């Protein structure tokens, strides 16, 4: 869903392009510091929860100091502006077509140099559908760094909230997985359909129930979402020594 502002920007840019065909577009578009950039891929179902952004951005601004745009940008892997997206998001239920070699190279370069990707399998079936296709792509992009369960002391579990299990629309795994490169985890993967738990309709009603945990499970999904966003912007900040005694004390209570 594109916002009115996005629509106008797009329309004006297009008009500018028609009137000034020789004028090159700037290398990076006018982005806010934080926004979701969702990857549109071929095959499968690339947009299983189209209305997830508003609620999580609202929650993000309510709880944290981060200023975010309550809208998302749709990108494909050939988009040169992909490198200027702070938070790349990919989701789906079903298996999708393999990425091209060029698309894989772009993702490898983006993720190896500080870029961040949050991936969601909204079906939550290990070895089937989106999970199978995404694991296939990760193996191609990072043959030596497959998706692994993130340990409980990973910064993503303590970047804002101290969480020990991950909620969601469904409860497939109580943990997150990821690709770890040195001290940075450029890819975080979840099969609990976090965005499904965040999604609201235009009347403000939750689109999905969150069985079996209900509302606490939804709340946990929001906490996990905020932690993932804060992690994407602060990296392993919470691993700094200054935080240790505080976090240790609270976890021991």
């Amino acid at each position: 869903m594109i916002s009115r502002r996005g629509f106008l920007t797009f329309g004006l840019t297009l008009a500018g392009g028609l009137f000034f065909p020789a004028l090159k577009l700037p290398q990076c578009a006018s982005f806010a510091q934080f926004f979701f950039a969702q990857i549109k891929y071929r095959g499968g179902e690339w947009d299983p929860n189209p209305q997830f952004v508003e609620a999580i951005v609202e929650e993000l601004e309510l709880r944290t100091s981060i200023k975010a745009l309550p809208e998302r940008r749709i990108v494909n892997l050939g988009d040169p502006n992909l490198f200027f997206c702070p938070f790349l998001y990919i989701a789906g239920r079903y298996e999708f077509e393999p990425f091209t070699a060029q698309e894989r190279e772009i993702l490898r370069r983006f993720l190896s140099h500080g870029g961040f990707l949050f991936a969601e399998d909204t079906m939550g079936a290990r070895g089937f559908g989106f999970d199978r296709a995404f694991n296939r792509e990760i193996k191609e992009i990072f043959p030596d760094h497959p998706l692994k369960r993130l340990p409980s002391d990973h910064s993503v579990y303590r970047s804002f909230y101290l969480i020990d299990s991950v909620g969601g629309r469904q409860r497939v795994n109580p943990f997150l997985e990821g690709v770890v490169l040195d001290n940075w985890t450029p890819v975080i993967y979840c099969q609990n359909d976090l965005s499904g738990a965040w999604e609201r309709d235009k009347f403000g009603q939750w689109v999905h129930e969150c069985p079996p945990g209900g509302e606490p499970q939804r709340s946990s999904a929001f906490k996990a979402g905020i932690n993932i966003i804060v992690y994407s912007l602060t990296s392993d900040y919470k691993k700094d020594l200054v935080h240790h005694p505080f976090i240790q004390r609270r976890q021991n209570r």
Partner: protein
Amino acid sequence: MNPSQVIIAPIFPLWVILILLILGSIFTFFQFRLMRKRLSVNRSLSLFLMRLAALSLLILFALNPTWTVRKEAKVSPTLAILLDNSPGMGMPGREGKGSRLDEARALLLDGSRPLLKYLSERFDVRLYEVGESLKALNPEDLATLKVGEKRADLGAGLAQLSGKASLALLVSDGSLEWGEGRSADFPIFTLPIGEPEKYRDILIKAVKAPAMAFRGREVEIDVQVKSYGYDGLRVPVVLKDGEKLLKAKDVRLDEKTGEGTVSLSFTPEEVGSQNLSVLVPRQLGESLTANNTVRLPLKVVRDKIRILMITGSPSMSYRYMRMALKNDPSIDLLSFVILRLPSNILNVPLQEQSLIPFPVETLFTKELKDFDLLIFDDFQSSLFFKAQYLENVRDFVKKGGAFAIIGGPAFIGEGGYAGTAIEEILPVRWAGKEGYRRNSPLGVKLSRAGRVHPLTRLSPLEGEDLSLWGEMSPLDGVNPLRPKSSGTVLLESTEENSWPILTVGSYGKGRVLVLATDDSWKWYMGMVAQGKGNWAYLRLMERMVRWLTKDPSLEPVQVTFPEISGTTGQETELRVRVQEDPAFSKAGMAISASVINPEGSKISSQIKPVGQTGEYLLSFLPGKEGTYKVKVETRAGSWEESMVIGGPAENLDGFPNHELLKKISASTRGKTLTGGDDFLKELKSYEEGARNRFIEESRHPLWGNAYIFILLLTLLTMEWYFRRRWGLI
């Protein structure tokens, strides 16, 4: 002429001469028999005898008889008088009359029978001064000879004398270098100068200290004190930095050895060259006080650059800066990210949050001085800071700390810096009411100053920086600022009415930087998108930190002090390296240097290019001990530093070491003497034995001259004449 003195040296082998003689004689006799038939006996005999005489002359000529003359001659032995020229010879002589050198001079020149004159009549006297090496002296130079600056090295000097002397007389106080187990190929007689039994002194014998220390880490300096005549006494040892007292401790001087050792420790607080000195205050009755102090140049460096970074909210700018700073092993980063503002609502109890209290008071009242660089990254200080904390930041910079502001919406719009102490130290001022401009992609270019400034020199290749910055991604947000007159804009927007993007300046002793955007991370990702890697962003961050913290490698002028502290009267040399700026090198690098002595007067100095481009050698001759101010100025920048020059008597152990003189004599078959007369007695017996004899031989060839040749010609001519007259021809 004695026939035994004549020797023959035949020009042909003897058997050839013998054959010639026999053949010649037979031929002559045969001719005589033939002539006898045609001439009378007398005439035949006359011709025969003339021919025989000519033959004999030829044979004698071939035998080459030589007269040898041998003459016996006698030569006086060579006596080397070695006069010690060590600094110790400048110490007071017996009963305080003149110096030890004067005492030695008097021994050689004065009195009713001057020793030097007496010896010259009997020996071939060669006079030398012994310093670092041997130097020949004329007797007339002796009266004006001055004490040298270096301790004499007798061992090295004797190597120069090898084979040139029969014996030597060493006039010294024994305070010289003589290697253990050394000897000489001639006897050395020693004539001691000075009075060991009356000598009283305290000196710093040795100081063990590192040449380099880390700021904030304790440094230990071991001091060894030696004394003569103060055994058992307790004396204070003081460590000073310039005139500032750093540490003082008492040391007890051992009753047997007269020595004591003490360790002084201190923690250097500032980076740079420190002029330390260790001293023992003057004691009553000391013969020499210049050796009570030792100068100690110490270079203090930082082990790690400590950075305190306060970030207003989690952001891409923070993530990429953190990545760059954490990647640098020489940086110790402590960062605080404001994750929650007072306006945010928390929905969980404390034990479910990872948030920690922001220790603003501790940081900005007590610990700020422990950091080298403070960074405010899009930080809204008004929510957390009292005005006093910002004043503390100003004082931190004034005293030499570094401060950087990374822009963003919170910097001006809500940052609350207008009218505060921060506004005072920044090299920029706000341009109007607008705090931040978003959604206005701006290209970035190097300013004129930025093209030559070390901070923005990312590429070693001239001109590459311009094109590099042309390829950098445009910015989506910028704080509209204007530079103050004290500020230098290095990066600016490409608009006609350009905005400063990166501005630097200084306040007090510290440096300040303003990066008026929170979008610098796009320079990183923009280059990655182009497949050019992340080096440019990482280098920019590294150089920002190093320039702010005054890393010497980024200073336009770098000066290297000599490893050993200089002394008076000795030329001091400093190596100067000037960063070549393309803009200046075209016009030719202008460089000047000035040196101010401890009395505040400018002294003569020279600076000349050496080696590679941009390298110079600065030299000057310090006349007095004390602190000298050295200043080097170039168009790219200047450098000023103080350096301490010690006196020649520093470290001088002036004790007359007569035991060493005895050891030298004993190991060279010489003797230690008590005075000039004693020496004369010793020499009398030695004089005769030491005289050398030799035979002079001269050779005079008897037949190798024109007279013999004329005689031979005459004989042959007469023989021919008579034969013609008597009708044989």
